[in-house]
C-alpha cells in the first residue's frame, strides 16, 4: 500500500524532468540552423546573436504589421519605396527550414524569415547601419541561444545577459566555478542566477554546483549573479560596484563621438553637444497627415533657419556608431544621428533645456534620449 503513491509519482517526476531537460536543450535545434541562409542573405555575428543583411551588408528588417497575417507583406507603394523588399530569385528554398519565399501583392517574390518578410531601409547610409530600426520596424535577427531561465536585454550599455524577466546579470572579478568569491552575506546582495538541478550546460553556459547546495549558471566560466538593488529590467546599478563587479555585456552599445555628452533634463537623461546643449533630430518625413489633423505647423525651410542651428563637424568623418556626417545642398557639413540631421535649438540657453519641444513641432523635432523615460498618457515621443 505504501508503494502506490510513489509508484504514481515517479513517472510524473521523470516526465517533468524530461520536459525541463528538453526545454534547456531545445536551443541546440536552433543552433543547428546557424549559417543556413539564402544566397541573397548574409549574417553578421554580434555578441548576442546574428544580424541578417543583404548581399551588400545592408541590414534587413521586419515590419511588425506583417505579423497580422504571416507569410504576407503589408508594406507596399510608398512604404516599399522607403523599405525595399529583399526580392527572391527562386521560389521554394530547400534546406533552409526558417526561410521561405512569399508572393508580394504586386506579384514579385520576397524572402521571409520565420514567415516574416524581410526588407532593407533606403536611408541606411552605409553597410551595418541600423537607422531603420524605429517605430514598427525591427532588425531581422537570430538571437543567441540562452538556457531557459536566462535571456538577453537591451540596456544603455548594450545588450546584456539577463534573467528571464530581464534583470541584469553580473560577474565578479577573479571568481570561477572552482573559486567562488561571493558567499554567505555577499549572496544576499548578489544572489546567484540559480539553475534547475536537472539542467545541463549549453554552449558557453555551464552549471556551477555550489558548496551551499545551490546550482548556479555560469557564462564562459564566470558564475552569474543578480544584483539586489536593481529594481527593474535594464538597470545596471551594480556595474562597476566595488571595482569588482561588471554587468555581463554581450554586445556593447554603439559608440558615440567624443563631443557628445549625456546631460540631465526635466525629461530624463538626453544627449547633448560639448556645451551641454540638447541635440534634436529632424524627422523630415514626419507624419504629415497626423500633423494636419492636429492643425500643427511643422518647422521646415525658413523656420529652421530662424529657430535651429545645424550641428556642424569640422570635416567629413567616418561613421561612429549611429553618428555620421553629410554634405548639405549648400555644401555645408552637418552631423546626423541615425541618418537624420542634427540641430540645437536657438531658443535654449543652458544645458538640459527642452524649449525645442513645442507641440507644433513635436512631430518632426525630437531630443535624443539616453534613457527612455516612462511617460504614460502624454504625446511626448523621444527619439
Amino acid at each position, binding site marked *: 500500500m505504501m508503494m502506490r503513491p510513489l509508484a504514481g509519482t515517479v513517472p510524473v517526476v521523470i516526465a517533468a524532468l524530461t520536459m525541463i531537460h528538453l526545454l534547456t536543450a531545445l536551443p541546440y535545434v536552433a543552433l543547428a540552423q546557424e549559417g543556413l541562409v539564402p544566397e541573397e542573405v548574409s549574417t553578421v555575428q554580434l555578441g548576442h546573436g546574428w544580424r541578417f543583411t543583404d548581399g551588400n551588408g545592408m541590414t534587413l528588417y521586419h515590419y511588425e504589421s506583417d505579423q497580422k497575417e504571416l507569410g504576407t507583406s503589408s508594406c507596399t507603394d510608398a512604404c516599399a519605396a522607403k523599405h525595399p523588399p529583399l526580392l527572391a530569385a527562386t521560389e521554394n528554398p530547400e534546406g533552409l527550414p526558417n526561410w521561405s519565399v512569399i508572393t508580394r501583392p504586386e506579384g514579385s517574390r520576397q524572402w521571409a524569415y520565420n514567415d516574416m518578410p524581410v526588407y532593407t531601409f533606403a536611408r541606411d547610409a552605409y553597410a551595418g547601419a541600423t537607422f531603420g530600426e524605429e517605430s514598427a520596424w525591427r532588425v531581422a535577427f537570430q538571437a543567441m541561444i540562452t538556457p531557459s531561465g536566462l535571456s538577453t536585454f537591451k540596456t544603455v550599455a548594450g545588450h546584456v545577459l539577463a534573467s528571464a524577466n530581464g534583470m541584469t546579470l553580473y560577474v565578479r572579478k577573479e571568481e570561477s566555478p572552482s573559486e567562488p568569491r561571493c558567499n554567505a552575506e555577499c549572496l544576499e546582495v548578489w544572489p546567484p542566477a540559480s539553475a534547475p538541478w536537472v539542467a545541463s550546460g549549453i554552449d558557453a553556459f555551464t552549471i556551477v554546483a555550489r558548496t551551499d547546495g545551490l546550482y548556479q549558471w555560469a557564462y564562459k566560466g564566470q558564475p552569474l549573479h543578480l544584483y539586489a538593488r536593481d529594481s527593474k529590467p535594464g538597470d545596471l546599478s551594480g556595474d562597476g560596484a566595488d571595482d569588482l563587479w561588471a554587468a555581463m555585456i554581450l554586445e556593447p552599445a554603439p559608440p558615440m563621438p567624443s563631443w557628445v555628452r549625456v546631460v*540631465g533634463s*526635466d525629461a530624463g537623461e538626453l544627449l547633448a553637444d560639448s556645451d551641454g546643449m540638447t541635440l534634436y533630430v529632424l524627422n523630415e518625413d514626419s507624419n504629415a497627415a497626423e500633423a494636419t489633423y492636429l*492643425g*500643427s505647423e511643422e518647422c521646415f525651410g525658413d523656420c529652421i533657419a530662424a529657430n535651429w542651428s545645424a550641428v556642424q563637424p569640422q570635416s567629413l568623418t567616418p561613421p561612429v556608431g549611429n553618428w555620421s556626417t553629410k554634405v548639405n545642398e549648400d555644401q555645408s557639413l552637418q552631423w546626423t544621428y541615425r541618418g537624420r540631421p542634427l540641430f540645437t535649438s536657438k531658443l535654449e540657453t543652458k544645458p538640459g533645456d527642452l524649449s525645442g519641444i513645442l507641440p507644433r513641432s513635436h512631430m518632426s523635432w525630437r531630443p535624443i534620449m539616453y534613457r527612455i523615460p*516612462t*511617460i*504614460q498618457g*502624454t504625446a511626448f515621443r523621444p527619439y
Partner: protein
Amino acid sequence: MVFNSRHLPLQRFLVSFIFASFFVVAGPIQAGVAEKKTLGFVVTDWNTAMYETLFMDECPEGPTPGNYEIWEASVTPEVRRSYPLMLFTKLRHINNRGRNGVNVCDDPVSFDDPPLKIVEGKYAYGIDLDGNADGTATPKTCEHKNFTSLNGAPGIDNQMYRLMGCVEAWKSYGHIENNANSHRLSSGLGMILIEVTNVDDTANDDSVQVGFYRGIGSYNLDSSGKVLPYASYGIDHEDGLPRYGDIVSGKIVDGVLKTDSADVHLPFFGNYQYMNQVFRDMQLHMELPLDGKPVTGSVAGYYGVDQFYSYVRGMLSTFPNRHKFSCPSIYVAAHQLADGHPDPETGDCTTLSSAFKFDAVAAFINHPEQEERIAGSGQTSP
C-alpha cells in the same frame, strides 16, 4: 543604565525598538537624530489660485474671446466662406493669420487683436508681496491695482489672476490646468518634492529649512489613482548635485509652515511643456498635519512674463482657438499688467505677482550624496 557585553541582546532589541518606533510614529520623518526631524512631501496637484464666483462677477465683461472668434469678427462673410471647410485645416489657416502667414503666437506684437478681458473684481487669493497696500510704484515694483483678500486684508498682489482670471480654459473647471495635473500624475514628470529639515517642533518652530526638489520616477498611486502617502521618491541629480534643490529658511507657526521670501526654482510639466520655473521673492505657506492626510498649501511670488508667455506660446501654437484666447491679447496684457522687477534700462516690469495652490502628501525623500544650493544665492540649475 549602562550596557555591557552581557546586555548585548537586550541592547540590540532596545535599539531596534527605538528605531522601529521612530518610523512608525513619525511617518515622513527621516532624520536619524530624534531631536531634529525631517518632513517630506510630494506635490500632487498644482493650480493657479483663481477666485471664482458663481456668476463670474469678477469678469463683468464676460470671458475673453478666443482666436477663432477674434478672426471671425475681423473678416467679412466672403472671407470666412473662402476658408477651408474642414475645421482643423481652417484653424491651421487662422493660426497663421499674420503677415506672410506668420503664426499668431510666434509674432504677437504684429497683430491688432482686441484687448484681453481681465479681472475687475475686488477679491483675490495671494499675499501682499511688495508690502505696499496702495499699489503705487516702488523701486522694486510698477504701479498696479491691488486686491483684497477674502478675509479683508488689503494690498493683495496677484496680477497673474487679473491676467488669466477671465480665461475660461484656465479656470478650475477648464482643461488647461486639469490636463497639466493629469499629465504630471500619469508621467511623474514635473514632480515637486518639498523637504522640511531642522524641525524641533512640528507645531511651532522659529527656524526650519525648506528644500525644493524635482522628483524622479512615477507617483505611487493607489487602486483609485490617488497618490499614496509615505511612499519613497528619489530626487533628480546630476554629478552628485540636485538639478533643483533651492533651500530657504522658514518657521512653523501653529502647525503652518511659512518660508522667508527667496527666489526658488520649481519644475513643471504639463500640456507637453517642460519648464524650470523661477519664482522671484517666493513665499510658501503649508499646513503640516502629520497624520498622512493630504496637505494643502500655497505659493506666492513673482512669475516671469517671458516664462509665462513661453508656456502660453508652446501650448497655444497648436490650438489657439481651443484655449479660448489669443496669443497677441495675452502677450500685450501680460506686459501691461507686469508689476515686479523693473528692467533697469527700460523701467518696464518683467514679472507678474502671482499665487498658486497645491495639494501634497507625506513622502520619504531619498538623497544621493550631495551638496545643496541655497535659494537666492544666484546659482542656476546646471
